């Protein structure tokens, strides 16, 4: 797979980042979990809360360390199977009954993805697979029964149910009522024990970095794989890679510093996540250059930035994502930044995204877009876009790779 050298440098601590390889991979996995949450409509931070509570339950049950770590990791990655699920994917208009059946496959799909991440402990994939099973065999995907469900998977199910209640007090009622039906009686009693020992206080999440075999997974490859899945979920396959290629070529043509290029590429990789919670991709309703769509672009940029801001390794992308709807003349949003006050990466990324949108528009049936995308970008230079960036971008696009 063709990756981008400067992002590798960033992930290898090239920007002076003191984080270890395991921490950087862990960051990426935590972000992946948050992306899964967004795709499945869970509230922000749900995955880490679930991981933390399930881990606390495992500790209360005095399970071995490796099992506690596996539970935490499975909690973090519990919803990654939601990406590309036909019951949630954009552009699928399934009747609710069929969509619900498709959503039953989220855990199994998540398990397949986890099994491909070699750095994860072996048990994680199965815990993700069986986290939605119910003691009485009415869960999904496998309708497993009773003790055939690993105890740790029950803990994930309990954590999930507890966090979906209005409060942990309500959770007490729900979980005791469902003891012997949704949850193993032993696991339900364990929740009561934890509640009384911890006073119902959730612990802050601590990622089990030591449980990862960091050398077994290339974080950059994983980053682009996630970005590709986000694209597929959004119904725009391959978009992120195309945009990232344009960003890298433009940064080289300017030229820009390595750290700036790496941050811009990171922002390109993350930008599609902002659209996961939206009903449509941002260019579906508005021309990519129209001011009308600016609020949507701001919202998507903010969502993507909020997700990236969760973990240190992706933070260089945050200011770029937040500023991607700023205009060069200072009339953009959200802060009305002008000229060099807008991060260089944001100036480049906004041009690349617009170009990709214009190109996509040309290929839509019944498109009225007759003007060539580069000409339209040049017309917007000086107002929406940085003229120097547009010149570099034009050179980069016209130069055969």
């Amino acid at each position, binding site marked *: 797979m063709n990756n981008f050298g400067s992002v590798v440098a960033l992930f290898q601590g090239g920007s002076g980042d003191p984080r270890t390889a395991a921490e950087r991979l862990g960051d990426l996995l935590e972000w992946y979990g948050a992306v899964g949450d967004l795709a499945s409509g869970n509230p922000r931070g749900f995955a880490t809360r679930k991981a933390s509570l399930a881990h606390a339950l495992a500790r209360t049950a005095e399970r071995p360390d490796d099992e506690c770590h596996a539970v935490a990791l499975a909690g973090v990655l519990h919803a990654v199977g939601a990406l590309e699920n036909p019951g949630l994917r954009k552009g699928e208009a399934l009747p609710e009954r069929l969509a619900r059946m498709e959503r039953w496959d989220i855990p199994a799909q998540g398990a397949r993805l986890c099994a491909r991440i070699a750095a994860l402990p072996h048990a994680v994939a199965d815990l993700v697979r069986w986290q939605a099973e119910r003691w009485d*065999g009415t869960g999904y995907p496998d309708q497993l029964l009773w003790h055939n469900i690993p105890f740790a998977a029950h803990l994930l199910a309990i954590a999930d149910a507890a966090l979906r209640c209005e409060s942990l007090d309500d959770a007490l009622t729900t979980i005791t009522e469902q003891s012997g039906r949704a949850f193993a009686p032993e696991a339900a009693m364990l929740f009561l024990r934890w509640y009384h020992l911890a006073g119902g206080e959730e612990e802050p999440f601590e990622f089990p970095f030591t449980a990862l075999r960091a050398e077994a997974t290339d974080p950059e490859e994983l980053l682009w794989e996630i970005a590709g899945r986000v694209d597929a979920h959004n119904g725009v396959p391959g978009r992120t890679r195309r945009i990232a290629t344009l960003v890298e070529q433009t940064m080289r043509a300017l030229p820009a510093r390595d750290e700036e290029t790496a941050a811009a590429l990171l922002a390109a990789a993350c930008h599609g996540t902002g659209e996961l919670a939206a009903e449509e991709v941002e260019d579906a309703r508005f021309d990519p250059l129209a001011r009308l769509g600016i609020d949507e672009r701001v919202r998507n940029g903010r969502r993507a930035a909020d997700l990236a801001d969760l973990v240190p390794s992706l933070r260089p992308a945050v200011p770029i994502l937040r500023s991607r709807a700023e205009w060069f003349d200072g009339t953009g949003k959200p802060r009305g930044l002008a000229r060099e006050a807008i991060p260089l990466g944001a100036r480049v990324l906004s041009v690349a995204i617009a170009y990709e949108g214009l190109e996509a528009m040309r290929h839509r049936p019944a498109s009225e877009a007759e003007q060539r995308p580069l000409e339209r970008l040049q017309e917007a230079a000086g107002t929406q876009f940085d003229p120097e960036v547009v010149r570099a971008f034009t050179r980069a696009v016209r130069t055969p790779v």
Partner: protein
Amino acid sequence: MIELQERTRRISPSRLHEILREYDVQSVVDPMMGLPTHLNYLKRHGIAVHGGDLLEWFVRVGEGIVVNDLTILRDSEVAEIVEMLPGRIYPLEMFKAWEGVFFSEEQCVYLGVWHDNVRNLRSDGQTGLAVLGLWRVLCYWLFKSHYPDEMPDIPPSELAWSYIRDTEQWVMSNLRRNTVRHADVLATISAQQADALFLAPPARNAFRNVDARIWMWEAWWQGNPYLNVEHLYRNSLFGARSADEHGYTRAVASILSAADAFPVVIVQTSEARLRDVEPTVRDARPHVRTLAAGPNEIYLVATR
């Protein structure tokens, strides 16, 4: 208190489906299907499924969630199952033999009422769904006797209502013909051709120690609390050989031989039993791939 086995047979249909997809399997036969929830999963994913079992209640459930594409039980129909209907005479003493041994008097009365009501349902599909839903009630009661303080008391009709209503979600069509038959292994294999045969053979002495949740429900379905399911197995392929190691191996070999026409045979076993099963599979097929998902879930995928 009745003893319940800690571990029963675990089939992960999502994992099985991953294997079937790899081999481009469009239809599968499971001649020892047991509770056919795994066939329901495969059906939901578009695979034509065919199952068979010696226990009739498994077959009835199969008619509800494997064969049945359309029929569900509506609220009014569920209401006619879970409580006594006026004007009907019920065999309230039918399960009296279990009273005070496994269940309370009230529970035994309900078992009799449900037995009668389910037998009066209009279609095989509805009957299968009701049998499945009510079986979950039986399991709840049995567990409740193990965890008297940890599980809430739920009125029988309420529990039955919720479990029967719940079965509706498993009803769907895959636009294929799916079948189940009440037959021994070889009869099912010879009656149905498919891309793959899936086999999860029982442990050698499994038929001598059938789980209470399984035999009791067959007894309930037959309306005979004294039913001994070991008798049902006695003349079956595995039943006659359950104590004899060589006989057991020969039984597995005879299945593999009968399955010669199936392009793919998948045998699920465990680490503990792998040595018993693997040589026989390798004798029967030139290409055997071992996929170990865990110590209790090992798949031998045999191709020609």
